[in-house]
């Protein structure tokens, strides 16, 4: 955009808004801000839907969690904090919470690291970009049900599944209960998730890599820095903000795990993979205890809030301590 000299711009009207600091500074001192209500016309459609389908359910759900309401909305009786008290003492709630956290830990690490490695490769090679995009990003465009059914029905079944057949090709022992053995079920879900969603992080990193100023590398090369040194001292430090972003987005996405487990293992074997959302679904939609399900969701929500609030605080502390 070409620079427009400020004096050439028409004087701002008093009722024109003041989004940025520049706008505020340009307004002559002493002129009172005139409220113009037609701004409301612009925000109303959004706010209506937002209030009806986000704010209201949020409040309503909080209320519901204090009742013994069932799925049809009838039979509600105020029970106070009973649902919460029961949830806290419910081992199934804790195990589903633990499974969710465990899945988040197991999936976030490879999703961030592999995403970064793939982006570095694609950026460094600068050839056949379409091939990298199609192979690493295209799976992200598939619906979760397509991905999960593919892995559950063709890749992971014991014996004839593709994974077992590959193992046999390499002379390894096939017959692993990928989805039926409690030792491997969660790992198989993680593998599927990594395959399916790593493309998103790959793209975020690729965009970040492309925006690193080229002259940094040229200067480093003149100084005789090796490729490794350039990676270590320029590229990775320049990616720090992106890594923070990718990490937060990934943790929040992983905490919401539902589709993969529901479609691939049904939460089994022995509930060893069942995450919170599936427990909420089971309690509310198949067990008809929607009041109790709401209480569990709110405990989960509190966990997510905690993660999103603590993360920036940790990051700030780290920056301050430097």
């Amino acid at each position, binding site marked *: 955009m070409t620079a427009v000299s400020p004096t050439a711009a028409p004087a701002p009207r008093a009722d024109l808004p003041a989004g940025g600091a520049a706008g505020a500074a340009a307004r002559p001192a002493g002129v009172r801000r005139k409220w113009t209500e037609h701004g409301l*016309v612009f925000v109303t459609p959004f706010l209506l839907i937002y209030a009806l389908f*986000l704010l209201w359910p949020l409040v309503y759900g909080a209320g519901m969690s204090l009742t013994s309401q069932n799925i049809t909305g009838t039979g509600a009786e105020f029970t106070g904090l009973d649902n919460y008290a029961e949830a806290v003492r419910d081992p199934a709630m804790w195990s589903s919470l633990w499974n969710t956290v465990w899945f988040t830990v197991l999936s976030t690490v490879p999703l961030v690291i592999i995403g970064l490695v793939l982006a570095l490769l694609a950026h460094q090679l600068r050839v056949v970009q379409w091939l990298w995009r*199609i192979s690493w990003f*295209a*799976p992200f465009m*598939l619906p979760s049900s397509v991905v999960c059914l593919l892995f559950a029905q063709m890749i992971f079944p014991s014996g004839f599944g593709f994974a077992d057949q590959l193992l046999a090709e390499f002379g390894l022992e096939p017959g692993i209960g990928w989805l039926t053995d409690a030792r491997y079920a969660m790992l198989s879900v993680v593998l599927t998730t990594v395959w399916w969603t790593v493309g998103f992080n790959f793209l975020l990193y690729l965009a970040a890599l492309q925006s690193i100023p080229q002259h940094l590398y040229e200067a480093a090369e003149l100084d005789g820095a090796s490729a490794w040194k350039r990676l270590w001292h320029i590229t990775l430090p320049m990616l720090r903000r992106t890594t923070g972003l990718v990490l937060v987005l990934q943790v929040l996405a992983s905490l919401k795990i539902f589709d993969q487990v529901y479609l691939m293992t049904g939460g089994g074997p022995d509930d060893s993979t069942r995450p919170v959302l599936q427990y909420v679904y089971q309690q*509310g939609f198949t067990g008809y205890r929607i009041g109790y399900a709401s209480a569990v*969701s709110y405990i989960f*929500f509190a966990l997510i809030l905690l993660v999103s609030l603590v993360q920036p605080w940790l990051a700030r502390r780290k920056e301050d301590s430097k």
Partner: protein
Amino acid sequence: MTALSAVFARTRRGAAERDGGRKARWTPGRFALLAVALLLALVWLLPLAWALATSFKPESETTKTPLEWIGSTVTFDAYERVWSVGDIPVWMFNSFVTASATTLLTVTTCAMAAYGFTRTDFRGRKVLYGVVLAGIMVPPQVLIAPLFVEMVQLGLVDTYWGVILPQVAVPAMVFILVKFFEGVPRELEEAAYVDGAGRWRVFWTIVIPLSRPVLSAVAIFTFITTWNNFLWPFLVTTDPDGMTLPVGLVNVLSSYGVRYAQVMASLVIAGLPLLVIFMLFQRQIVRGIAHTGLAGQ
């Protein structure tokens, strides 16, 4: 013709500048990187290739071991069977209607709201914007129980609106658009006001066309997520005729029993629309996602 070649020359020059004005040399190290990348690309493509291969096999050979990519004959039987049963076209239509409507409503309401928050002033503007921003923290999945009861009460279960409405008001999209509008210089708009245009005219004839790149990014992103969404449509539709593609697949595939070729053919058909969209809009999608994600910084 000359204009075209000029454009080509320019993009080529652009690429050269981006590469630091020199061509990368093919050192042994770079060959090694290429080999690693090709191997990883292969690993990522294998599951898709296996699905495709299975869908062309005769049903009796789908579970044969050891590994065989191509059966005794290549057959389209599975595709014909799956398509002629007739559910998949219905689900595809439902997905198309609900994803398009959600996208249209999301882009319109979010763009208007973002404009309202950045370029107009009204009582309570800051408070309302704060309330919208706070919504980013609410994972939609946590709302499923109360939202479902609300849908029952409104009589929206098994309707298109029941699928569409809860997916529309996305606070993150407002945030992205606000960040974009804040960076757009006001001079154009102010000149139009001086010429006597009203808010609406300015919004539709100046702001919207100016924001086409970011709006299409938001639109593509919304379309992808709503087309692929599973949990909400799964909860709010019980009638197979009203299901979206991802939900319908799950609902009916179990009844196929062990007909793996048909299952894989269904998956290929279901996966194709967005893969085609991806091929067509590669650049916009890549830019859109990069932008959407990075706007959080």
